[in-house]
């Protein structure tokens, strides 16, 4: 994780099983608990919980499996998600609100409105998404504990 490595106060990795809708929300719930215990500001926790929930759903809906890692540093939270699955053929299209490839099963579970990725972008300060079609997707996002324009972890 580049130059910020030595500043990591906490790191935990969670495994997400694709297609397991009944446990959807469990990982974001655990992340929320950790952030609460770490004394992270409430507003940051809300943004992080929502973004993590969406990221978790993306793995459940579109991948066979994935890993979600939470990093806490003194300045920001970082979440990295790597999955094996469908991948995204057109990231630009996937980022547009309302665009969805969700099937009936996903909608049955209350998701698939085409709001997930745009909602992650809206609730985070930095977001990077790369994907190889039919292989998998890499997503990482950062939320600053206090907005600090000078600290850009992706630079």
């Amino acid at each position, binding site marked *: 994780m580049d130059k910020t490595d030595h500043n990591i106060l906490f790191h935990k990795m969670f495994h997400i099983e694709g297609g397991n*809708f009944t446990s*959807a*929300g*469990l990982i*974001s*719930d655990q992340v*929320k608990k950790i952030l609460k215990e770490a004394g992270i500001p*409430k507003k940051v926790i*809300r943004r992080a*919980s*929502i973004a*993590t*929930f*969406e990221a978790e759903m993306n793995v459940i809906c579109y991948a066979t499996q994935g890993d979600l890692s939470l990093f806490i540093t003194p300045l920001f939270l970082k979440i990295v998600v790597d999955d094996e699955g469908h991948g995204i053929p057109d990231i630009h299209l996937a980022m547009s*609100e*309302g665009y969805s490839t969700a099937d009936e099963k996903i*909608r049955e*579970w*209350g*998701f*698939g*409105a*085409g*709001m*997930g990725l*745009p*909602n992650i972008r*809206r609730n985070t300060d930095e977001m990077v998404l790369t994907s190889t079609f039919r292989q998998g997707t890499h997503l990482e996002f950062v939320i600053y504990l206090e907005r600090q324009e000078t600290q850009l972890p992706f630079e």
Partner: protein
Amino acid sequence: MTLKEVKEILNAEVISGNHDLEKEIKCAFAAELLSDVLALSQEGALLITGFTHPQVVYAADAANLCAVLFVRGRWPNEATQQLAIQKKIPLLSTSYMMFETCGILYEYGLKTCALTVENGQD
């Protein structure tokens, strides 16, 4: 408006969270999709929905919503109820349809919490 008033106005049953009925509800948000709850609701809102899977409680908790009101007499299963108790999110159920539920609460002065979206851009 308190949760107790919501209960009385809609003749709703309290599924769990009976001791939290004095909670003040400032605004409400209605949705059948959790995607919409996560993308459009605002903190502190009462969520009006027909969706009863436990994920509705996870979504409400992630978005810091204050309570969930099920419409059409929908009743969540034990797993949803237990999770709601654990998360301290009161659950209520009314037999009114979604449209009537929203209309009645709106008439009583409860306002929307939803973020505004452009026409057709939801």
